[in-house]
């Protein structure tokens, strides 16, 4: 592979790592801080992507939208839309055990996918929305990628700083107290339900933002752009491997898993065409297996949850005497 090609590929990879890192950060707020099992990540991603697309593209026959707004407004809209979707789901499902939330979130993602595919007036159906402008998209290929990478990194760093600050602030301590011992937290008068909803919504907003970032990078968004279950699963294993409860872990996990995923794609691309299709599913199998291995042998992840005066182990995935939610 010639050098330029390699550089472009590296940039491309870095951008995707940035986007997935954002998703993983969002999941970290929901799962790492608040102990909420969200299996519908792809749904919030899609909501964000489409919202930004609808808001920031020029008018198009047959579908609403076309407000042609600046991409920043599109991205803010994406976060708001994802948050708005998360709110009712959270209100209904968060008071139950995580299992029920898991199933409900799978359902939500499914409904969102159905809506996107079917409501052509909103989303252009299977054709998707194209012609999304990429900021700095008009300069040269590599330059444009570099520029976008800078934007993605800026967003990621901003998000990281915000989330990390919250984590260290009283809010973060309270979230973890609720996560680890709900009964005690409730007794102390903390409004458990509201706090969990907060976490769920914030996490969803970040996921929506990730979707918007993707849509603008790709310059288009279709229902098939990402395989929802693959994407959702990738984000989960990124967080678990990186270290749930740890923001740097989320980012590290995104990098590690995405690199493994990409490299394995390169490796299997070299196989003869008959095996090419199977190759994707072999890679999926291995990713699934990787999760089992991480859960068994290193559940706290590469970067465990940082000590904050409590025991350092990841309380939600490691051995516990009491049968905990």
């Amino acid at each position, binding site marked *: 592979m010639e050098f330029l090609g390699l550089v472009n590929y590296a940039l491309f990879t870095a951008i995707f790592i940035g986007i997935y890192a954002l998703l993983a950060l969002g999941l970290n707020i929901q799962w790492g801080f608040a*102990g909420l*099992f969200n*299996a519908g990540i792809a749904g919030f991603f899609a909501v964000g992507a489409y919202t930004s697309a609808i808001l920031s593209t020029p008018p198009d026959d047959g579908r609403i939208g076309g407000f042609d707004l600046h991409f920043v407004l599109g991205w803010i809209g994406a976060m708001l839309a994802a948050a708005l979707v998360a709110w009712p789901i959270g209100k*209904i*499902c968060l008071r*139950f*055990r*995580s*299992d*029920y939330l*898991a*199933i*409900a979130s*799978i*359902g*939500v993602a*499914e*409904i969102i996918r*159905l809506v996107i*595919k*079917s409501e052509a007036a909103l989303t252009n159906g299977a054709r998707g929305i194209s012609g999304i402008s990429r900021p700095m998209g008009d300069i040269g290929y590599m330059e444009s990628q570099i520029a976008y990478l800078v934007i993605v990194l800026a967003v990621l760093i901003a998000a990281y700083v915000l989330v990390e600050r919250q984590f260290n602030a009283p809010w973060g301590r309270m979230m973890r107290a609720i996560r680890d011992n709900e009964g005690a937290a409730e007794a102390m008068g903390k409004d458990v339900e509201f706090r969990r909803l907060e976490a769920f919504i914030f996490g969803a907003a970040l996921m929506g933002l990730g979707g918007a970032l993707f849509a603008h990078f790709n310059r288009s968004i279709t229902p098939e752009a990402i395989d929802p*279950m*693959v994407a959702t*699963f990738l984000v*989960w*294993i990124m967080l*678990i491997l990186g270290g749930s409860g740890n923001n740097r872990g989320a980012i590290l996990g995104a990098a590690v898993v995405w690199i493994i995923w990409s490299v394995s794609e390169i490796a299997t691309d070299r196989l003869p065409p008959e095996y090419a*299709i*199977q190759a994707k*599913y*072999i890679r*999926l*199998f291995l*990713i*699934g*297996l990787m*999760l*089992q291995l991480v*859960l*068994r042998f290193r*559940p706290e992840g590469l970067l465990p949850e940082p000590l904050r005066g409590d025991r350092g182990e990841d309380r*939600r*995935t*490691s*051995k*516990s005497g009491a*049968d*905990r*939610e």
Partner: protein
Amino acid sequence: MDLELFELLNFYVIPGIVLGSIYALGAVGITLIFAILRYAHLAHGDLATLGAFVALACVTGFGISPLAALPIAILVTAAVAVGIDKVFYEHLRERPKIVTVMASLGIALMLRSVVQVVWGVDTQTYARGIVRPEDYFGLRIRDRELYTVAAMILLVGGLQLFLTRSKWGKAMRAMSDNPNLALLSGIDNKKVVILTWIIAGGLCAASGFFLGLNTELKSLMGWNMLLPMFAAAILGGVGRVEGAVLGGLIVGIAEELSVLWIPSEYKAAMAFAILLFMLLVRPTGLLKGKVL
């Protein structure tokens, strides 16, 4: 008026009962796992997919009829279920249950990938050709639809007999009722767990098989059933076998009837709506099960 009634029955209710029976088979397994192992098994749908495709392998490999392949598929899937538990879930038993739920999401992906690698992603069927329904006093029913409902009744009926009459069946109920006391009474937890997986795995195979028999085989077929299966189990009441059957039938019929008033693309949303509704209004389900 008569015509409309029969139209309703033939095009909506009967397919709904068939689909409901397929859901019921899966939902019973889910409710058992909820009751005894106390978590949501997210790989249940893909276990059904595996069962369907194992049956396909028997049909194409040994040249036997699909129905003859069913028992083999049931045995193989039951064995796979026990194997999965031994290799992947057993080690997580000391941890919070949600970890096993997470693992099961990964197992779902792995099962699906195996099917995709071995059998590819193209749609397949057990037998080619259109099957015309027989006429039973104005009701149009296909043989395979009869088999589906009959099989569900037989399998679940057999399970109920097992649970109410046999010692180990009662042991399963005891573990679901009061796991601590079951242990104190000397009931071997490990054996009950294995039994649970055998039953759940076997029923899954039947569920996937009959879905494939009545429609077609796709690698995502089981995953697409996951939500309806869970909706059915929760609708009926977690831990209640009869509830899972009732829930399955209701979800199936509701799904088929739904096209009368919502666009058909949203059929799948019906199950979700039922799930949310139950969680909001009556989480213990129709037959008062547990709330986990």
